[in-house]
């Protein structure tokens, strides 16, 4: 039993890392644009499909396929920002919060059905990064999972370095704190919007592309992970990067261990997805700022 629990805990960690990648993108978008991107799951799905096709049709090596797919989705994100989200900041729409919710939700319907039409309803699996399994004592875990976790950590650290240590990241942070003040200091907030939405989309795509060889790829694959990312950003505190990473690991573990520790196994599995949602509901009711959020962030 302890072994099984340990294995579950390890699986929870790996899943938590993928969640973290996706939620990090959502956090980046929220902190700069003050928008919850309801189409995030579809960007994740597109990332998985692009990576799959690049590897299968053009023979890209898996890692290169992941990176290229991130770049493609980055530009899709940029296009979405320019076409649909820009009006929020130029004062062209009246009810900004609601507009942003509805338009990203509409985009998610559109992209999901477009994928269903273009790629078909069949499930696919990306080629594996690394075959075989690694055994540590009596625990065995597939190399793919280990490789994916390592890549996820690399992407996360890269994002943190870009945000924390570069001039560009400084600009992003400035805009996330105060749009007008940043503009006065000579930072173009529109450019930062583009960058944040593009990079956030690319992170979602990275999550999807990495999950490709482990789980299955299908047009509605983003529906569940996107809800997990919502849970994470709320639990961690909207807009907090530290909170986002810690909350992802908490959620991954809570789900993996919670379903095992539930007395009735079949119902335990059924309720697995409800654990995180319960977190979300409780956090919103008790402490809407989450674990590390500073204050209630809303669009002005």
């Amino acid at each position, binding site marked *: 039993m302890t072994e099984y629990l340990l294995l579950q805990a390890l699986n929870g960690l790996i899943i938590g890392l993928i969640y973290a990648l996706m939620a990090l993108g959502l956090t980046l978008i929220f902190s700069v644009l003050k928008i919850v991107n309801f189409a995030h799951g579809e960007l994740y799905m597109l990332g998985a499909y692009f990576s799959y096709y690049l590897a299968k049709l053009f023979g890209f090596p898996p890692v290169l396929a992941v990176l290229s797919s991130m770049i493609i989705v980055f530009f899709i994100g940029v296009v979405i920002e320019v076409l649909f989200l820009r009006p929020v900041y130029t004062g062209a729409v009246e009810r900004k919060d609601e507009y942003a919710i509805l338009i990203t939700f509409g985009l998610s319907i559109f992209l999901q059905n*477009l994928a269903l039409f273009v790629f078909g309803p069949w499930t696919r699996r990306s080629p594996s990064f690394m075959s075989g399994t690694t055994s540590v004592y009596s625990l065995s875990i597939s190399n793919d999972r280990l490789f994916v976790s390592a890549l996820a950590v690399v992407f996360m650290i890269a994002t943190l370095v870009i945000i924390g240590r570069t001039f560009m990241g400084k600009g992003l942070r400035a805009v996330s704190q105060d749009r007008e003040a940043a503009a006065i200091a000579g930072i173009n907030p529109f450019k930062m919007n583009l960058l944040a939405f593009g990079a956030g989309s690319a992170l979602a795509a990275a999550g999807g592309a990495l999950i490709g060889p482990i789980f299955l790829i299908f047009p509605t694959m983003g529906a569940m992970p996107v809800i997990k990312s919502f849970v994470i950003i709320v639990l961690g505190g909207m807009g907090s990067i530290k909170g986002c990473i810690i909350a992802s690991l908490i959620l991954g573990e809570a789900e993996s261990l919670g379903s095992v520790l539930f007395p009735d196994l079949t119902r335990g599995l059924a309720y697995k997805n409800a654990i995180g949602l319960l977190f979300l509901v409780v956090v919103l009711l008790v402490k809407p700022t989450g674990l590390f959020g500073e204050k209630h962030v809303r669009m002005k």
Partner: protein
Amino acid sequence: MVLFLAAMALPVALDGYGLHILIIAYYYALLASSWCLLAGYAGQFSFAHAALAAVGAYTSALLVLNTDISPVFSIPIGSVAAAGVGFCIGFLCLRLQGPYLALFTIAFSEIFRIVLNAEYRYTGGNFGLNVPPLFSQESRILYYYTILGILILSLAIMHKIVKSRLGLFFRAVREDEEAAATLGVNVIKYKILAFVITSFFAGLAGGFYAHYVRILTPNIIQLPQMGLIIAMVVIGGIESLAGAVAGALILQLAAEYLRDYEELRWVFFGLLLVITLRFSQNGLIYPIYKRLTKKSEKDHAESD
């Protein structure tokens, strides 16, 4: 008036399948118009509307199955149950606005769906729950007039609300909560009231649906269902009950008419939703209707 007569006379001209499509369209029209009241007028963008319809549907179905009461009574009980859940959501969400409210209501809907799935011993889970019919005769015409009656009555009530002081307070809360509060509007009361009223109509629609379709699965709560309701309201015109109804009818009929295109029609509707939002925030149908009526008024004026 012309529309009403046409709706009354339609069953004569249609076969069973055509009637079925219209019945479903009226069901969506009721959901869409009540969501329009909640989101468009009161400004509460809740994603729990489909779940509230399911509360009405499952309450009514389980009541009939377990206590042998007639659906005629259980459907109103289901609606009241939905209103009760709506009260709870409204009460809990008093502090939540914008994206926070959206996330909360999505989470509520998903939890409810998961519970319905997991407790399959009571709810039938994904296999579905067999629900007794509303009428003992196999007559679509009876169902048709029932839902038409429910829809017209509900619309009349909602129209009355919109035109009354209550509707005015709803809009005041939507535009600026703080300002409304300083002017003496009891914001808490009207926010909760908006949820209670609209949830009642959602539950009513759900209850009827359960006893008409006679098989219930938790899928009626899925997010795409909510997406469909939102698309209907947005395309119809988010600040107009008539627009929402028109949006629901047109989208549902278009979906049937374009059946051969399968996924492509949803791609098209999604695109239409996004484009409508981006370029015409009062919807597509309402402005066209406005323009047409204005034109005809002008024509009248000129001919006079």
